[in-house]
Every structure is written in structure tokens, then in C-alpha cells.
């Protein structure tokens, strides 16, 4: 529920133009072009050349579409595939408007090429909102080329032709037809007007034949047969394997090591110290390029990794070796009793409102550092030769990786080629690029192609983490039970004493800001030496738990039904205006700036819509529940998606929590591109939130991460996974993404259900069963 402020049109949306998109499609396209690094401009300069790549001749219609004489249609997928299904869904959009036969479509990972494809990344659930409308036009423009080619062949007007039969142009009057394959050579020569992407007609959605149909992932046949697809599967002639060991304390470095003994081990080729790039960028996880460490190069990865057991290093642990989670927990309690360091929003008069409130509720909520742990550990493969380097990597952020490699190696970015492989999970972790730099540097230093791969302990202990946080809430109700005053003193982290640590910020627009007349948001900061960064639904994944848990507590204190309390709040008739965004505020998910600033603002009617839908579908208030079983709700708006979740849980007398069922209602606009992938994302997102809440915490002791593997860092397993039922509320709004927004409501829905079952609020994540024992 952040970013309530994104654009001025929010006010209009709130005032009652529910269901209407506040930014017109054209405005969005222009915005998309600006936001996407010249997205549209680049669509209008497609390559018109014939190319011969692979065994068959392919005719290029534009940067996205190539057609073989046998009518195979190859569609480039511009964004990296990390499990969000984009390699299937975006080609579906192109194929729809092209009127291609999906049976003949081959989706291929596009190369990294900003000129042809604009921004190429996987983050912020942006791939769908940024590309859905532009890619429809790319497909429609190519269709026009095929129609024009057919019309010329038949000496008729293009308007007399149609593409009713997928993969064919037909002369409507005579039913003559030509396949796309037969037309490809001629079509590739057709020059369209430079503004074709703005003028081309796209389909009426009621005529969709591919969009909106459940379609199985394009790589599934390769996945189920174990074909090489992922970064870790990469192999090059003459390639050697590397492990790269870093100081267990963040920011530390090796002074010396028993390198000669390591080099003498069987299967080990070389071992050497690698100086880090200064500054290392710690503790902003996203800024890390190369840390100091020790490289071990082996004939096999197993040999290199086994050598770590024999590695003896003298470390200089650096300045953060005294930090610990325990210490931060104590400091946070201490800070909560003191005046905040900074007030960043103040509406009305909070102190006066609390003084005159009929009821005042206070609640503290805390959450820990969390690791991303994609199942494919960080790895990359590089071949450096003659001042150039080629890198294969599972990455969400290929262009940033290219830039970081160029910077560290001191070569121009044009000398760095990055190939995107399929990624075995991302969750924000692969927005960082340091493992790509490691591969490039090690290949240069070792003089051979290198695959560097982390073992699980290295991977979990040298991440950047979802930052911890502590919230001290206070709410005031009037005699009617209406929320009239709200305060949060947020204890968070800074990396340098001034700037907030990466992803440790809370927006001034965080809900319930604007919906309460007297409201104060304030923060105090603690100095943190642990790298932090974005994790799936950054900030929201933590703030959702804290705010939606406390609001639930307030609803109960007000004697109101938790769903109705939220609906009433969203129906507040007069909203407090947002302050203007501070100068210099950049992008990210903050309201008013960056990509979100280009997108429609928060619309409370859509929030009410999903809450009403989930109330109906879950049988809220209608179910007779046994003792220690309860239902809880949460709503959160993030990444342009509106998600409400209800969970039913049963808490055993000894405190163990079983989630019985999840009902999830989502509003992501007027069209679900691929319902199969969409439901999968939502189910997985809700379970991800449950997994975090039930078991996940990274703890710091003496400046180092305590956890080592999936035994002390627990992910949800099959026997713990409840059924998740998904419902869409289709509204006439922009089509937006689904990778992230299902996560933030899950932990609070779970914790609110626990409170309903036991009367006990979960004040701290992860959930500690010992606090839930029946008394």
C-alpha cells in the first residue's frame, strides 16, 4: 500500500472514476517510451535485412519477429526469464496481433541490445505493464507487412485481405490464401511508415485467440527432459571451474592463505588472491562489483570446492565484525523510547488527536533480515581474451552486469557481451551483478574460460538481504470506532549515517497515509554493515506484514469486522493530499518518481473490489470454525497490483501453525495474458510470503551470517503448502504484472488468522511457535 501518490490523477480515481484508467493508453505509451529507454523509438527502426542464422533461412520482419519459409515464426523474448513466465507471455502478445499460429511459434531469448529492444531486465513486475501495449503494436505492424506483401502479389488492396486463418493471409473475397512462410521473403522487404507503431490498428480483445488462453511455458519440454538451459549448465571448450571464497565478515579481506598447499591438491590448477574493486560498495548490495577474495581454479568444480576444506586464511575482518542481530534488536528497543531522528510526514495534529481519542492502541512489530536463496546458486561463465569478454549468466539485470564488468576490467562496455540464460529463480537477487564480474575477472586472471559457481553456504552468506525493520505504531479511534490518528516510528538502517540502506526505506505515501486526518511517519536509523537490497516486492514484503497486522489489531479494538474496517477506510470520502515529492527523489517504487510516476496511481475502489471478492469466495464470517482455528485477511497494493488474501489456520496447542487454506483475489487490470502462468505466480507468491513468515530469518553474529544451508534456513515444503484458490477481479484498467504483488499480503493474512485463532498477535517474524502455546 505504498505509492498512493504516484500521480495527480490519483485524486480523480479516488473521487469516483472507479474502473477507469486514469492515464490514457497513449499517455502510457509515451510514458513507456520514456521509461523504457526509448522503447517505442527503437521499435520503429527494425532491421529489415534478410538473415541466415541456423540451418534455415529466416526472414526478419522486425527486431522481434523472424519467419522461416516453412512458416515457423521465431519471436524474440526481450526480458530475462527467471521463472516469471515472461518468455511465454510476451511472445503470446506478439503472436496474437501477428495472427500467428501458436503451434508454429518458437520463442527465443533476445540478445542484450538496447537499440533494438530498449530496457531489458526483470524487476518491479514491470515487464508486462511496460511491454504489453507496445508489443501488441510490434505484432500488428509485422502483420501489416505480411498483408501488404500478399496484396501486392494478388494485385489487390490490403483492405481486401484478412488474417482470419492463423498463419495465413487470405483474400477475403476469393478465399485465396498464402502462408506466412510463403510471404516472409517479400514481407521482409516492405517498408512501413515511420510512425506505424503509433498508427497501426490492434485487435478488439474479444477477437483474441492466444492472449487470455492458458498456455504451457515454452521451455517446459526442455525442462522435463533435463536439457541444458540454465546458467549453471553452460560449458565452453577448455573451460575450468572456480570457487571464490570471501571473508565471512562483510567488508573483510584476506591477508594471506596457504595457496601453495591448495595448488598441490589433486584437480586444483591454481589458487590466488583477488583484490576487490574499490570501493567495494558495501553495504549497498546492488552496488557491489567485486569483493576481495581467494579464487581456486579446478579441473572440476567438485575438486575446486573440495579444496575449500583445506584452505587456511588469515582474514582482516574489517570494521563491522562486532555487529550482531541481538545488538540491533536491543538498540531498536532503546531508540523506540526516544524522539525519532526524522519526521518524514505529518498531517493534521497527531498529538492533539491522540489526546482527544476515545481509544488508543499501541503495537510493535519487527521483521528480520531475509535471504533470497534462489535454488540455482549464483554462477556465471566467462571467456576473456584480447581485451574482450563474453559472459553467460542467469541474470535479471544484464545491462548493469555489462556495465559493472566493463568498469572493473577497465574496458568499454562494447567489449563486454552478456548472454542471458534461463535463471533458476531470481526474486531480486539477480538484480545484483557481482557474480558476473567475478567470472569475467577470474577468466582474465586465470587466462582460461571460467565457470564460477557458489556452494550453498557461500551463496547464503554472501547475499544482499531484505533489510530488517522495527515499527512502533500508535492509533487513535473516535467514539464511533473511526481511525482518526495514526503514528509509526520506524526503526531502520543506514549504511553511511545519512542515507537509508538499500530497500530499507518507507515511503511517505505508505497506507494508511491520506486516509487518516492526523498522521505522523517518523524514522530513526542504525548503522548497518550488512549489504541489503531488493527482494521480491521490495519494502512491501516487510511493510505489508507490519502495517496490515497493526491495522487488524486496530479493527478488532474498534469492534469491527477486519474486512469491513478496511473497506470503510478505503471509502474515506476526503483524502489528505500528498506532500510534493522531495526534490531529487529518483525512481524505484517511491511515489512520484521513476517508472511508477508514469503509471496510474492507487485507486481505492479497486482495493475494495478485491476485498469484497475475497470475502465472498472465502465464506468470510460464514464458516463455523473449531477452537484454535481462525481466518485472517490482508490487502496490499504493490507493483500496480491489488491483492487481497484470506487465510485459514489451525494452531496446535503446542503452538505449531498449519495453514489450512488460502483464498486470493487479484486485480491486475483488464486482461490476464496467460491465465496458467498468472495463477502459478499468485499461488507461488502467497506461499513465498507464508514461507518467509513461518521460517525465515538471517541472523548476524560478529559481523557474519549464521545460517549455512536449507537446514538452518527453512523454506516451505510440500507437506506445509496449503491449497491456494485464486480469483481475478477483471477491471477496465491497464494490464500489469504478477511476479511480486501476491507476496506482501501473505504474512499479515497468516498472522491475523493466528490472532483470530489464539488471540495472540505475532509481534515478530518469523513466527515462533513457543509464543503460541495454549495456556
Amino acid at each position: 500500500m505504498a505509492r498512493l501518490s504516484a500521480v495527480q490523477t490519483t485524486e480523480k480515481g479516488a473521487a469516483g472514476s472507479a474502473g477507469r484508467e486514469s492515464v490514457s493508453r497513449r499517455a502510457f505509451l509515451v510514458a513507456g517510451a520514456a521509461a523504457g529507454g526509448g522503447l517505442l523509438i527503437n521499435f520503429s527502426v527494425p532491421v529489415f535485412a534478410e538473415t541466415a542464422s541456423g540451418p534455415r533461412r529466416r526472414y526478419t520482419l522486425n527486431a522481434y519477429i523472424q519467419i522461416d519459409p516453412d512458416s515457423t515464426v521465431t519471436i524474440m523474448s526481450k526480458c530475462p526469464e527467471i521463472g516469471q513466465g515472461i518468455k511465454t507471455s510476451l511472445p503470446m502478445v506478439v503472436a496474437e496481433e501477428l495472427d500467428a499460429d501458436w503451434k508454429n511459434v518458437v520463442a527465443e531469448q533476445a540478445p542484450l541490445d538496447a537499440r533494438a529492444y530498449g530496457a531489458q531486465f526483470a524487476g518491479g513486475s514491470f515487464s508486462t505493464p511496460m511491454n504489453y501495449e507496445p508489443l501488441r503494436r510490434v505484432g500488428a505492424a509485422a502483420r501489416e507487412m505480411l498483408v501488404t506483401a500478399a496484396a501486392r502479389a494478388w494485385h489487390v488492396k490490403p483492405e481486401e485481405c484478412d488474417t482470419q486463418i492463423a498463419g495465413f493471409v487470405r483474400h477475403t473475397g476469393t478465399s485465396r490464401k498464402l502462408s506466412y512462410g510463403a510471404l516472409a521473403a517479400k514481407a521482409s522487404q516492405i517498408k512501413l511508415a515511420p510512425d506505424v507503431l503509433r498508427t497501426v490498428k490492434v485487435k478488439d480483445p474479444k477477437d483474441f485467440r492466444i492472449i487470455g488462453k492458458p498456455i504451457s511455458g515454452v521451455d517446459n519440454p526442455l525442462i522435463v527432459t533435463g536439457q541444458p538451459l540454465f546458467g549453471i549448465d553452460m560449458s565452453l571448450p577448455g573451460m575450468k571451474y572456480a570457487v571464490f571464497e570471501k571473508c565471512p565478515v562483510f567488508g573483510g579481506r584476506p591477508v594471506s592463505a596457504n595457496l601453495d598447499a591448495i595448488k598441490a591438491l589433486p584437480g586444483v590448477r591454481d589458487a590466488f588472491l583477488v583484490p576487490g574493486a574499490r570501493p567495494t560498495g558495501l553495504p549497498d548490495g546492488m552496488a557491489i562489483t567485486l569483493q576481495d577474495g581467494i579464487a581456486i581454479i579446478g579441473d572440476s568444480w567438485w575438486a575446486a570446492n573440495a579444496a575449500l576444506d583445506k584452505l587456511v586464511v588469515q582474514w582482516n575482518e574489517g570494521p563491522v565484525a562486532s555487529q550482531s542481530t541481538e545488538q540491533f534488536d536491543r538498540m531498536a528497543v532503546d531508540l523506540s523510547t526516544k524522539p525519532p531522528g526524522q519526521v518524514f510526514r505529518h498531517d493534521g495534529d497527531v498529538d492533539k488527536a491522540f489526546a482527544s481519542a476515545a481509544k488508543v492502541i499501541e503495537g510493535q512489530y519487527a521483521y528480520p533480515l531475509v535471504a533470497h536463496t534462489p535454488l540455482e546458486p549464483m554462477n556465471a561463465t566467462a571467456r576473456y581474451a584480447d581485451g574482450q569478454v563474453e559472459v553467460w549468466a542467469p541474470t535479471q539485470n544484464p545491462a548493469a552486469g555489462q556495465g559493472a564488468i566493463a568498469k572493473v576490467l577497465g574496458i568499454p562496455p562494447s567489449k563486454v557481451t552478456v548472454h542471458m540464460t534461463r535463471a533458476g529463480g531470481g526474486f531480486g537477487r539477480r538484480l545484483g551483478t557481482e557474480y558476473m564480474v567475478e567470472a569475467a575477472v577470474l577468466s582474465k586472471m586465470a587466462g582460461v574460460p571460467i565457470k564460477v559457481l557458489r556452494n550453498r553456504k557461500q551463496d547464503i552468506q554472501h547475499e544482499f538481504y531484505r533489510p530488517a525493520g522495527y515499527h512502533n505504531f500508535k492509533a487513535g479511534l473516535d467514539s464511533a470506532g473511526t481511525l482518526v490518528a495514526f503514528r509509526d516510528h520506524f526503526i531502520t538502517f543506514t549504511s553511511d549515517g545519512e542515507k537509508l540502506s538499500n530497500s530499507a526505506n518507507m515511503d511517505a505515501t505508505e497506507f494508511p497515509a491520506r486516509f487518516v486526518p492526523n498522521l505522523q511517519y517518523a524514522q530513526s536509523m542504525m548503522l548497518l554493515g550488512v549489504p541489503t537490497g531488493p527482494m521480491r516486492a521490495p519494502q512491501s514484503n516487510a511493510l505489508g506484514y507490519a502495517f496490515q497486522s497493526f491495522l487488524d489489531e486496530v479493527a478488532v479494538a474498534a469492534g469491527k469486522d477486519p474486512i469491513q474496517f478496511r473497506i470503510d477506510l478505503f471509502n474515506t470520502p476526503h483524502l489528505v493530499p500528498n506532500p510534493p515529492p522531495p526534490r531529487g527523489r529518483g525512481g524505484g517504487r517511491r511515489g512520484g518518481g521513476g517508472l511508477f510516476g508514469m503509471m496510474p496511481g492507487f485507486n481505492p475502489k479497486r482495493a475494495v473490489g478485491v476485498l469484497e471478492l475475497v470475502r465472498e469466495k472465502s465464506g468470510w464470517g460464514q464458516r463455523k470454525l473449531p477452537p484454535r482455528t481462525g481466518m485472517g485477511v490482508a490487502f496490499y497494493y504493490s507493483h500496480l497490483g491489488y491483492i487481497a488474501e484470506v487465510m485459514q489456520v489451525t494452531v496446535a496447542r503446542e503452538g505449531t501453525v498449519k495453514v489450512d487454506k488460502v483464498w486470493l483475489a487479484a486485480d491486475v487490470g483488464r486482461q490476464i495474458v496467460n491465465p496458467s502462468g498468472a495463477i502459478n505466480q499468485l499461488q507461488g507468491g502467497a506461499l513465498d510470503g507464508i514461507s518467509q513468515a513461518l521460517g525465515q530469518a538471517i541472523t548476524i553474529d560478529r559481523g557474519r551470517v549464521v545460517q549455512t544451508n536449507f537446514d538452518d534456513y527453512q523454506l516451505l515444503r510440500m507437506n506445509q503448502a496449503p491449497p491456494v484458490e485464486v480469483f481475478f477481479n477483471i477491471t477496465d484498467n491497464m494490464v500489469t504484472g504478477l511476479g511480486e504483488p501476491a507476496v506482501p499480503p501473505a504474512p499479515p493474512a497468516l498472522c491475523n488468522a493466528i490472532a483470530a485463532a489464539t488471540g495472540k498477535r505475532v509481534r515478530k517474524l518469523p513466527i515462533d511457535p513457543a509464543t503460541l502455546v495454549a495456556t
Partner: protein
Amino acid sequence: MSYTINVNGKAETVDVDGSTPLLWVLRDVLDLKGSKFGCGMGLCGACTVHLNGMPTRSCITPISMVGSAAVTTIEGVGASPVGEKVRAAWIELDVPQCGYCQAGQIMAATALLTSNPRPTDGDIDDAMSGNLCRCYTYTRIRAAIKQAAGLPTADTREA
């Protein structure tokens, strides 16, 4: 040292240290990249293969322990009718998100259905809880196992 192992019905001779886990022999010596590395400690199941039909964590199975056992990997699991059904169900129900764990999931599911053709939800929990999916595609995995077994796919573990 030289070891001859039987992988997907074929005898393969490799020259590696006896402590080398089967996973790394498969991946980096025999170039069978389907079995995945996730944890190296038998905690996540991404490396699951069959030894004489038994689901086995290849990341903690030294090559010296394999002996004459029939090793089946994701690349070869389709040779059995059950394996083929499981693969087909995975595609039909669009199980994967990132797909990294799915080789291990398919191997565990095939072993389950081979010994227990009509598993209950409890049987599925028992057989599959050693295989992590970080994308949490458990809903689809459960449904796909039922589909491969010819059972109704609806999740009947009602609240």
C-alpha cells in the same frame, strides 16, 4: 580411479576420485546437465536420480558407492511409462516456474507413482517433502502427480 557405472541403460567409464559425488560425474564428466546442484547436503532434492528405481540424492552419493546399480536421470526417466506420464502431466499442467527444481521433483514423483500408482495427499506429502521448490509450485506439482496417476486433480484437502 576408474569406475564403470550404468547410466540410463548405458555403461559409462569415468576416471575420477572415488569421493566425487555422482551429481558432478553426471553433470561435468558425462555432460548430463539435467540433475541440478542446489545444496550439496541432500536437503533440497534438486539432484534426485534413481538408483535401481529408488530416489537418491546424487549430491551426497560418492561415485564409489554406485557400483552396478542402474542409475536413471531426468534425461532417461522417459524410458519408463510412468516417467513419460509424469513428464506429460508436468507440461500439460504447466508446473514449472523457474524450472530448476523440477528434474528432482519429476524423479521423486516417478518413484512415488511406480511404487504407489494411486497415492493419497498424505502419500504425496511423504514422498515429495524432501524436494524444495523455491518458486513454491507445490500446488501444481500435487495436481500433476494426480493427473499422471489418472486421479482427479482438484485439491480436496478442504479447509
